[in-house]
């Protein structure tokens, strides 16, 4: 089973890397870019087949390691 975890900075948390990318896109002539926020994607392959159990386990992975919940949110997609 394949899963994708997306980790993003919470709203209101400063993202200097996103800001720099936003500036660079503007410099390339993409004038309609309002803002850019940078995040992380984790593709996780799991051996089990129980989707509900996988989701619960992935939530634990996010809480314990993949995300720092002080500053980051996460979302989980299972194929």
């Amino acid at each position, binding site marked *: 089973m394949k899963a994708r975890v997306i980790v993003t900075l919470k709203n209101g*948390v*400063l993202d*200097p*890397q996103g800001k*720099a990318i936003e500036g660079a896109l503007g410099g390339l002539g993409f004038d309609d870019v309002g803002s850019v926020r940078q995040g992380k994607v984790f593709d996780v392959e799991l051996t089990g087949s129980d989707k509900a159990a996988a989701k619960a386990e992935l939530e634990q992975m996010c809480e*314990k*390691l*993949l995300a*720092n919940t*002080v*500053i980051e949110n996460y979302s989980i997609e299972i194929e």
Partner: protein
Amino acid sequence: MKTAIIVFPGSNRDRDMFHALELITGARPQAVWHTETSLPDADLVIVPGGFSYGDYLRSGAIAARSPILKDLVRKADAGVNVLGVCNGFQILTEAGLLPGALMRNAGIKFVCKEVKLQTVNDGTRFSSSFTKDQVWRCPVAHHDGNYFAEADELKTIEDNGQVIFRYADGTNPNGSVNDIAGLTNKAGNVLGMMPHPENLVEELNGGTDGRLLFESLVSAAA
């Protein structure tokens, strides 16, 4: 004073810390490799600076899940003094021993320079050798030193007097909220700070301002 230093793959300020502690306490700290599961008997455990695990995932994130951290949390809960400097501060926040998080510097760049710190709380075991509001010099060298805590948490930290050191005289190098350079947990026995006091303990290196922090701890242990 008995001390121990935890060493991770990628630690690089551990030797500076060994040198500073030996110089000031007169005794060689014990080195503890990150895969060990128990810390030796010590008055002070140090989590040194560096780039543990190459800063993979987030600075300090992987180190904060290494085997020795379980015992560090146990010892910290039991009241043993813990000092985390730079990457050590990042590891302590990732491990939940200190509130908040350390993010990419607001100016994006790695900063390596000297800043000024103000000791805003001199009533702690980490700061008793300073005078209140004393401004002192200290080197910094980091990429992820932008301290952040949510408004509610920040208020609690400030109300409890947990902020010990602030960047002074407009030298905040990383955008840290409230100019926070170093803070303790609520119990006051765990301190994390981005600047490197261990790098300013000898006249040969340009000054001894950093000694006061270690001398505070020596007094507390006496």
